[in-house]
């Protein structure tokens, strides 16, 4: 008998692991490490998302799914484009009521997933967070219990366990043992909390590489269900230590989302069948080289 590899095509991964009506986690933060190759495939397959779970700061990963009309509700700590501006699909769908926003904050993003990762029924919050408007706006996910040691009221959040999460790592072997070369954001807790995990990677490395670097392995393979080999798969966002975000493309995206987002989707998502197609459309090797070449301190 021999060991089974988990590297499969993005189309197969989405077909098998992303069910219509699922609770979907998407990793990455701001315009970094968004697993866009898989997210574009979710849009191609028109999978409907019951509830979207993100890091404390979501970006295109959430906004594109929303703009494609696939998201029913979102746990929202922040959706935006940092210094590049606001997320227009998110705003439009939220303001028109097509998207239900379950307001939350950074503490919810982290502790709800940690509660999920530890199989806790709920997760208490540190004192003070009850003073904002967030728990008042979202009484479904923030509730009060008694501290059994002091009898005082304590605000708690619901534990969250996504049905499936889509996370980007820089390297993994064929069995799912994976390395974040840069920041991990909240992706590791998301992986731990999720029932199924699709890992998009820049490169698949040999198992021997993993064994030589055991002190650097962030994700043990047992937590991973499918590996998608998608170089430049984060575009237009960055993949830490591999390439930076494509500011020109993000500005084009933001303009499109203000004006005619379906044209954007037609050109870049429905009009491309694979990650390779997509990379040709956004500018091929020349664009890739440009995003890799930059001043770095390390």
């Amino acid at each position, binding site marked *: 008998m021999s060991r089974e590899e988990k590297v499969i095509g993005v189309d197969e991964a989405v077909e098998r692991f992303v069910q219509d009506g699922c609770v979907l986690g998407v990793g990455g*933060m*701001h*315009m*970094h490490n968004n697993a866009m190759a898989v997210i574009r495939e979710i849009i191609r397959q028109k999978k409907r998302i019951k509830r979207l779970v993100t*890091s*404390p*700061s979501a970006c295109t990963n959430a906004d594109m799914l929303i703009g494609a009309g696939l998201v029913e509700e979102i746990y*929202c*700590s*922040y*959706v*935006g484009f*940092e*210094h590049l501006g*606001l*997320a227009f699909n*998110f*705003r439009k769908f*939220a*303001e028109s009521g097509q998207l239900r*926003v379950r*307001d*939350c*904050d*950074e*503490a919810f993003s*982290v502790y709800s997933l*940690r509660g999920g990762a530890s199989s806790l029924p709920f997760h208490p919050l*540190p*004192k*003070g*967070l009850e*003073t*904002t*408007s*967030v728990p*008042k*706006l979202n009484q479904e996910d923030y509730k009060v219990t008694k501290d059994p040691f002091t009898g005082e009221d304590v605000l708690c959040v619901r534990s969250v366990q996504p049905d499936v999460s889509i996370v980007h790592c820089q390297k993994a072997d064929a069995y799912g043992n994976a390395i974040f070369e*840069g*920041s*991990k*954001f*909240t992706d*590791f*807790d998301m992986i731990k909390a999720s029932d199924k995990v699709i890992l998009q990677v820049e490169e698949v490395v040999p198992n021997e590489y993993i064994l030589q670097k055991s002190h650097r392995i962030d994700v043990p393979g047992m937590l991973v269900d499918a590996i998608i080999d998608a170089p430049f798969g984060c575009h237009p966002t*960055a993949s*830490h*230590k591999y390439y*930076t*975000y494509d500011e020109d493309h993000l500005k084009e995206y933001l303009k499109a989302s203000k004006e005619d987002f379906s044209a954007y989707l037609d050109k870049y998502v429905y009009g491309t069948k694979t990650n390779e197609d997509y990379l040709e459309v956004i500018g091929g090797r020349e664009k890739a080289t440009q995003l890799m070449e*930059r*001043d*770095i*301190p*390390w």
Partner: protein
Amino acid sequence: MVTALARGLKDKEVVIMGAFSAIPMLASRVAQLTHAPNLTFICGGSGAVNPVLEPLPYSSCDDRLLKAECIYPLPDVIDLEARPEIDVFFAGGLQIDAKGSCNLIGIGEPGQMKFRGPGSVGLPFLSRARRFIIYTMGHNTRIFVPEVDFISGPGFIDQEVLSSGPSMVVTPLCVMDFENKKMRLKSLHPRVTVEMVTENTGFDLIIPDDVGETPLPTQEELVHMRRIDPMGAARDSIQ
């Protein structure tokens, strides 16, 4: 703005900032290289602790921050935000009110916002930081309102919080602080008048007799700023 923020930080403090923070990052690094060698600063989502910052990036999660003393995972950073270790939290908002509360949730009524904001992110932790500093890239009456529509980060509110509250507000026009829990003009940036500030503030700002001028950067500070920020990320941030 950078100089005012840098001088607002003390030696040995631990400082944290979130999204859209080129200016606070630069200010922290300048403080560290001048009067506050034992300052620790943490760049939000990247988890970078005391990054070298050459060059200063636009994004708080940029991988160019990762030449640092530690890449502290974000969940651990958030644990830290609840601990007494954080001395200064840099905050901002779509709306900021006279008592220093900040709003990133939106504008309008619950359930029918006419403007949906991006969300509160880390601002609720303002209730636990020793103090916080507000900075904003614009200064107008849409931002500076009498009372925020929603509270993402509590300023001087009626409920008791652990934080001693906001200590300073820095905008492209001026520096402000607080007197009896209400915002007060402290100093004007060069070429700015009191009228320019009051016209662009949507509530009655306390105007003391001795409004000073915001100090200009020293030669030493300028040298550091130019070396750290060759791309001009800090300057580009101001609207």
